[in-house]
């Protein structure tokens, strides 16, 4: 499989160098307008990011980013169709034009940005690899994990990160590798391993699978950077801007205190010049992006601001119970910072 992957990567890259030249400015928006919906690539099932509910509707923050793009383009968040892609086919689907935007917990890296004919439009979620440990272990930090047995899900970067981290800190460990997250959760529960490592967003999902989730905690250390965000094809700057600013709009709305409940009232009555510009009361900032005047109003009204989206899919009200952490706004100690609309 690994060899298949690398061969594929080479072939994909080769094919894309040929294809990326064809993408013309504005081509994607024209095509999207013509077919009347945004085709969005999401994952094939990742709790809190994109997963179908009992009625088949895709829910999660990755899916909501696409809904925001649809709301910006059409003023209707429901004009989006989802392609559920696995990790192997995601880039091909975008390169071949099967989807317009890929919002599938994809880590922003230099090689993906530069070598594959793709470009990242922003960061939806700052993720990073962490550890889930039993409280009984009495460990407060990953630095105390010397000699621990660690459950790892197969996937080279996860294993590499652990080995790098333990070597850098001069610690010893025994890895046990599993194919699926269910197996590793069961092993943690049965005591085969002391801690379990994965991306932090997934650790919370793993924890909620356990019989007594309260007995386990996620250690504070983050040993790798995994900024996840939407991806578009390179060479279509207009479409890149639309996706990028749909995401920024949700962050700006949260920062200005605009929510899905008060957005219409704010659009009419707010005296704050920032809010008036953002909601299209003053100025024509949507026009430069080839969008309508009230694009941010539509995004916030139909999808919510970033904070609402986060709480709905990942926050304390869900089984995942993920805290904002690095994903808090910049003025609340987090990393989420969006340029202003003006």
């Amino acid at each position: 499989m690994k060899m298949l992957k690398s061969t594929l990567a080479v072939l994909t890259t080769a094919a894309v160098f040929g294809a990326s030249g064809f993408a013309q400015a504005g081509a994607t928006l024209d095509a999207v307008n013509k077919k009347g919906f945004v085709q969005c690539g999401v994952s094939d099932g990742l709790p809190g990011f994109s997963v179908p509910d009992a009625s088949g509707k895709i829910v999660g923050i990755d899916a909501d980013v696409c809904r925001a793009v649809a709301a910006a383009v059409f003023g209707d968040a429901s004009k989006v169709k989802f392609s559920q892609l696995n990790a192997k086919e995601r880039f091909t689907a975008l390169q071949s034009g099967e989807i317009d935007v890929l919002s599938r917990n994809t880590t922003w890296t230099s090689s993906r940005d530069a070598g594959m004919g793709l470009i990242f439009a922003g960061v939806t979620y700052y993720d990073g690899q962490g550890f889930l440990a039993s409280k009984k272990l009495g460990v407060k930090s990953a630095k105390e994990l010397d000699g621990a047995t660690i459950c790892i899900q197969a996937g080279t970067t996860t294993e590499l990160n652990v080995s790098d981290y333990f070597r850098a800190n001069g610690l010893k460990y025994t890895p046990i590798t599993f194919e699926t997250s269910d197996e590793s959760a069961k092993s943690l529960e049965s005591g085969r391993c002391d801690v379990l490592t994965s991306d932090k967003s997934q650790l919370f999902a793993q924890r909620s699978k356990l019989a007594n989730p309260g007995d386990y905690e996620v250690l504070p250390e983050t040993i790798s950077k995994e900024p996840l965000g939407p991806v578009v094809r390179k060479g279509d700057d207009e479409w890149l801007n639309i996706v990028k600013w749909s995401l920024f709009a949700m962050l700006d709305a949260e920062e200005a205190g605009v929510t899905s409940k008060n957005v219409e009232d704010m659009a009419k009555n707010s005296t704050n010049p920032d809010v008036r510009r953002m909601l299209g009361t003053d100025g024509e900032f949507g026009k430069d992006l080839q969008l309508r005047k009230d694009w941010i109003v539509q995004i916030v009204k139909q999808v919510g601001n970033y904070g609402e989206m986060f709480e709905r899919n990942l926050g304390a009200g869900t089984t995942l119970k993920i805290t904002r952490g690095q994903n808090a706004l910049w003025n609340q100690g987090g990393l989420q910072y969006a340029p202003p609309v003006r």
Partner: protein
Amino acid sequence: MTTHQFKPDLPPPVATVGVYAWLRANLFSSVPNTLLTLVALYLIWLIVPPLLSWAIFQATWLGDSREQCTPSGACWLFIEQRFGQFMYGYYPPELRWRVDLTVLLAVVGAAPLFVARFTHKLRYGIAFLVLYPILAYCLLSGGMLGLEHVPTTQWGGLMLNLILATVGIAGALPLGILLALGRRSKLPAVRVVCVTFIEFWRGVPLITVLFMASVMLPLFLPEGMSFDKMLRALIGIILFESAYVAEVVRGGMQAIPKGQYEAAAAMALGYWRSMFLVVLPQALKLVIPGLVNTFIALFKDTSLVYIVGLFELLNSVKQASADPKWLGMATEGYVFAALVFWIFCFGMSRYSMHLERKLDTGHKR
């Protein structure tokens, strides 16, 4: 004169009849056998009671959320809640009657073929084989006759397994027979083409075929042109399976004595007629176990389409168990999927046994 009165027969010794004798003959006939029996009983004791307790006695059957489930037993609520998705995938719930109708039509339509007294079986069978797929496609896909279009990306669950398997079988069987004939042909060009085809498709794993069809093919097509993912997988499956069917059928043809070929030739039958009237009917009957074996394998292999992102039964289960509301229910899901696959495969194997008995003409040794 007195007639001799025979004494009534004594009953057989207690040790040779009844439960006791059976146990003794089958389970405790020797020391190693007794030991094996005891070990087996111990294993059953270890495995079965906890399994039954998990799956039935301590399981939760009624309710609608994960919180209502007892942690010590299975949570079948998850299956109940997602049952529609496991069966139909993302086929719109209000249109699912169309899938039911398609299945019903298949059952009703094929029923006359199984009635012994029905006389026009061949003509009816051919008409059914030609008309039914067209009708089924119209019903499932829609887009005509006022039926709403449902793209194949929304097809899924068990329905997708069944479609892939039945169309795969229906496509692979005729193609496989032709390939088998071609491989035994006296024309070198035909033979070389068939041998190359069979050896190529038998030499690559199905997963690679599917992967190529879904991930690589779009890169070679012009931008924006993409054809249906399910169709791509289906064509891959048909080509792949036809190579296997060809080899099974060829095995049957080689078992037919040369006299049969010569007898057909002596009756002035041409190539096609001697093949279809004399050789193939006997050969196909011989290879029923092999063919059914191939088809059972094909049915199970349909779950491999998960690799190309199609949501057949197993992938639907996997995906549903990623729902934050039902995290940790993967075991129940997989048990359910295994049970469904087992029921279908067991059914197929029973039917093949029935078919063998029915077509048996006394060559059994």
